[in-house]
């Protein structure tokens, strides 16, 4: 069974533990899966209070999804040497920068190890590419890639780091495909990490009140708001007042 199929198989068995917990058999009832919803709607609470603090120790996985992650974590794709080579490579691709750090702080090698197991179709390119690097380095400099000097490493990478954008990637040599994949995983691994997101400067993923693009940004990009359009938009000072309309649908509050 492929990874995707396996995952889908797991989905199908979704949340059995949860549902079993929720089963309540009434007197004489012979049905299963009967749930009395105990959802309490809280009264007035601020947005911040409503963000469940208890959610921190979960990340929304179903039991079956967690099982898949545990299974993948128990497997090993890269050996110690390969992991070290990946770490060296990651750091050349995206050198650390103060105050954020780099791929090591972003746990990029661990991410690549996991993704390689999560997407088995990547394995040949990754494993083969690492072998190619050592082979090439041994041929040129009589040593493994991770032990070579930065200058020697770059000398090798310079031959594979740029690809012809006119030719489909899958028609290019393995080492080109490998570096493309490794660079992509390094960059995505870094910018999806805590330090990488700070470095990028992304400000979202938290409660806030959207009230339009700041003036200096509008100016920078040479656009402006149409006053007629803005007049129809939400007045955020009234967002907490319950909506009421007249019979024609005109908002009164």
């Amino acid at each position, binding site marked *: 069974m492929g990874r*995707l*199929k396996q995952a889908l*198989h797991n*989905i*199908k068995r*979704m*949340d*059995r533990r*949860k*549902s079993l917990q929720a089963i309540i058999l009434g007197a004489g009832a012979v049905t*299963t*899966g009967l*749930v*009395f*919803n105990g*959802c309490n*709607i809280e*009264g007035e609470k601020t*947005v911040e209070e*409503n*963000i469940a603090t208890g959610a921190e120790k*979960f*990340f*929304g996985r*179903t039991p079956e*999804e967690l099982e898949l992650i545990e299974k993948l*974590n128990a497997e090993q794709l890269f050996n110690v040497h390969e992991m070290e080579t990946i770490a060296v490579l990651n750091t050349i691709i*995206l050198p650390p920068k103060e105050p954020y750090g780099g791929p090591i702080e972003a746990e990029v090698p661990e*991410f690549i190890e*996991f*993704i390689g197991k999560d*997407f088995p179709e990547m394995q040949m390119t990754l494993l083969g590419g690492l072998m190619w690097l050592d082979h090439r380095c041994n041929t040129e400099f009589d040593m493994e890639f991770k032990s070579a000097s930065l200058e020697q490493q770059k000398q090798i*990478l310079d031959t594979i780091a740029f690809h012809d954008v006119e030719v489909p990637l899958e028609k290019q040599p393995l080492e080109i495909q490998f570096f493309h994949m490794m660079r*992509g995983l390094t*960059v995505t691994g870094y910018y*999806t*990490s805590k330090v990488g*997101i700070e470095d*990028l400067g992304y400000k*979202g993923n938290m*409660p*806030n009140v959207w009230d339009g*693009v700041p003036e*200096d*940004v509008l100016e920078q*990009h*040479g656009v*402006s*708001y149409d006053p007629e359009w803005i007049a*129809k*938009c*939400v007045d955020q000072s*009234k*967002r907490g*007042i*319950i*909506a009421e309309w007249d019979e024609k*649908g005109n*908002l009164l*509050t």
Partner: protein
Amino acid sequence: MQIKESSELYDVIIVGSGAGGGMATKQLADAGLNVAVVEAGPFFDPRNPEQMTQFKWPYESPRRGAATTRAFGEWDMAYGGWEIEGEPYTHTEGTKFDWFRSHMLGGRTNHWGRISLRFGPKDFKHKDVDGHGDNWPIGYEDVKPYYDKVDKLIGVFGTKEGLPNDPDGFFLPPPKPRLHELFYINGAKKSGIPVIPSRMSMLTKKLNNDRGTCFYCGQCGRSCQVYADFSSGSCLIFPAQNNGGRVKIFVNSVVREVTTNDEGKATGVSYISKDDRKEYKLKAKIVVLAASACSSARILLNSKSKQHPNGLGNSSDHIGKYLHDSTGAGSAGFVPDLMNRKTSYNEDGVGGMHVYSPWWGDNSKLDFPRGYHIEVWGGMEMPSYGFGINPNDFNKFFGLKVGGYGDQLRDDVKKYYGSVVGFSGRGESIARKDNYCEIDPTTVDEFGIPVLRFNYKWSDFERNQAKHMQDTFEEIIHNMGGELLGPKSTKEEDYGLLVPGAIIHEVGTTRMGDDRKTSVTNKYQQLHDVDNVFIVDAGPFVSQADKNCTWTILALSWRASDYIIEQLKQQNI
């Protein structure tokens, strides 16, 4: 093994807990009926910390959000997907249909885009306009009062525009456009394409004391823990329970068939419990199907009896016929004027778009009969798996080398962050009798229930419409000073027209009509053949407009529920 039968007689069994099932639950329970909701998936509450994905960072998962186990990314709130192991579907050779199922309380409403558009007067009588397809047996004036009530009960933001076929409603005020949306507005206007604020069911303003107000995280696809977006569980089923309604929810329960008596009337349903893989029966005076257009068709076709040898309600042989989905094609462009953005502010906004383009064209002058609307996406989104995977591909637009390594990559990522704008065209296809789903006589699922076989092909109408979309997108992106990403879809690629089913607007399989020979239900969504079975998903749709189907599902489910209550009062059923 004997099938276990519950001794309780419910007033109503509702199969499925998405938009249609949720609304029927709310209306019928509020009316005092004793309701059983039967749902194939597990219980789900967006507020449950164990299930919640809202506000998760990519690094909270080792796969950083990749779509391995969930089709729309790891944080998406749909349990299910295009394929579900153990619950297959098949195709007639040479045809295609992708079927998205979400098995959980609330169904697909937990992750949907919340684009909440009313059908217009023309949409119910489109045959009168162009001779294609069929008219509905009802018109906009029949549904309008229910659209109005849905607006007020659930909440939708938008603006009064006075457009003839995009009726206004009771709107909450919309959010202001984001930066890339201002570019889109300007680009579209250059081509004479109208742009108006989106109409979506998030609460930009307080609606009642039970639900929170939108805090603009842009994550409606993850389902909102303060219930500020519409999901069937949080906005219909839980309120029905909290209102003192008699609502029992059976989860992990896969309905096999509607059971009938010697007179051919429905007596309840039989279902398989996923927990113990045993079959159970529930009894009710009325059965309401809301399992999705295709799933409800499947249940009816599998409900064969002496009285209903062709499947329940299928004397017309129309169940499964006229299956149709919205058309879809997309494109994206790189806009140099959106480069080098300041990241000084949070522009997550509401999930999805703040602006869109309703259909503007005159089909009498075009080579396809029905329209489409344009959805727009872009902005400085939260990174997830795949972000920066081609960090400087756009260098090619400047004649610069693509690839490399080192500090330059950081600059490239930041330089190009937020500079892509995408478009999705979502249009109306013509409902055709020869596009259908049926029971595959040779295949069952892991519960022993015969599965659906799909038979669906697009026609040149849809392909021509997709070509128009691609030409339009290209024009708009050029108007925005941008370049298309990747080559434009060709004729050989059907102009990027997505596979039927891909837009997840499955409708039409149990269409309504006045003539019982050519339709499955009457205009109140009651089976012609069996007066105590109703269908409140999108199966009874005669045609799917260039809109999204959910708001109409909700309005029609409410209307059908009112009819059920009325008929019960009159002791007609």
